[in-house]
């Protein structure tokens, strides 16, 4: 189980009240496969985190985990062990911006 923290607007859209949700993912899960599993469980999140066709992360969305910015890592790389083990959450963050 991977713990995922969604930004407030996406929690509302997904209809979840908890700040963290748990996603089933294999031991070699990557950012791509984790987001894929998230979209499978919550289809209403399709295209809100990444482009469904290109897989490209939306410009105002960032990925953080284990005190690191993973936004520019290869999305096919295996996630940090602590994330896969459920010790650390995977944070999907809306970039700080006004408006």
């Amino acid at each position, binding site marked *: 189980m991977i713990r995922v923290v969604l930004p407030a607007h996406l929690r509302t859209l997904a209809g979840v009240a908890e700040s963290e949700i748990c996603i089933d993912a294999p031991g070699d899960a990557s950012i791509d496969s984790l987001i894929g599993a998230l979209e499978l469980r919550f289809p209403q999140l399709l295209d809100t985190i990444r482009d469904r066709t290109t897989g490209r992360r939306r410009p105002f969305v960032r990925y953080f985990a284990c005190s690191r910015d993973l936004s520019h890592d290869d999305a096919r790389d295996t996630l940090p062990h602590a994330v896969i083990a459920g010790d650390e959450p995977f944070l999907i963050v809306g970039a700080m*911006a006004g408006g």
Partner: protein
Amino acid sequence: MSSIRVLVGTHKGAFILTADGKRKDWKVAGPFFAGWDIYHIKGSPSDPNRIYASQSSAWFGQVVHRSDDGGASWNVVGNHFAYDGIPGTHQWYDGTPHPWEFARVWHFEPSPHHRDVVYAGVEDAALFRSDDAGVTWNELSGLRDHKTGSQWQPGAGGMCLHTILLDPGNPQRIFTAISAAGAFRSDDSGGTWKPINRGLRSEQIPDQNAEVGHCVHRLAMHPSRPKVLFMQKHWDVMRSDDEGEHWVEVSGNLPTDFGFPIDIDTNHPDTVFVVPITSDSQHFPPEGKLRVYRSRVGGNEWEPLTNGLPQEHCYVNVLRDAMAVDALDPCGVYFGTTGGQVYVSPDGGDHWEAIVRDLPAVFSVEVQTL
């Protein structure tokens, strides 16, 4: 007695305002989709409890919601707007080629005849159609593939397809308008398109007779007289009596011919409403006086409607989709401002009252007569 439901899209959510046919005592519900830009929220004429909302944000992109119970509950439907084929390029502001990129839905137009059919006008400009009430969307790519498509340029708000008019008597006829490409007509259900911009004058473009390049802000058509169109352009209020083939200016005595919305009295096809704005560089009413102007003769002769509207220190704007009329007699007229006010006139424009004063900036106003 009839009742009225006003659907308001704002910079930070949607609101639904309801009243009985007197249009005096209003209930305000919302915000729905709090914190999101709601460019447009519109109900289906063939099933008024079916309502579509275009929800978008710079962070999370486009989401489309649909309600089937008059706005009491909402469900996410389809938000996959894929251009047909390899989209190619249009012109950027500086005239250089720029790839076609989907940004958001500006306008929904549900079919008056088919409950599950709805059109979406999007940025970058294209027309999409759904036959399953918004679950899936297919581009009517004959419009964007028009030979002039690569020459289209965005207006200041983006290259948006903002107006969709469906001829109620001829399901094959569709009018659209794009900033800043111009107006277009299809006579084959959206398969092929013809620019209909003859007679428009736009100082900003080098060739006054150019087929495209005109910044059309809004079109209006009365359902009983679909060959007659009115247009609020970047500058000039225009009229066509031949389905857009030729346009003549009907700005007449307006204090300024710049503005965004234009609409027509439900009961009188020659009674037209506009909201003059100072200029393209000063998006607020002239002299700080918020005035709707009404022509009862199809243009050229306009009277200011001010009773109940602020006549000093008013510097709001009224955006292109932020005016609507109801179907009662006398016709109710509604508009929203970037200052968050939604005004109603229950008597065709003679008297105005604010329904609400402190909403986020209003992007769109639609009215359902139930």
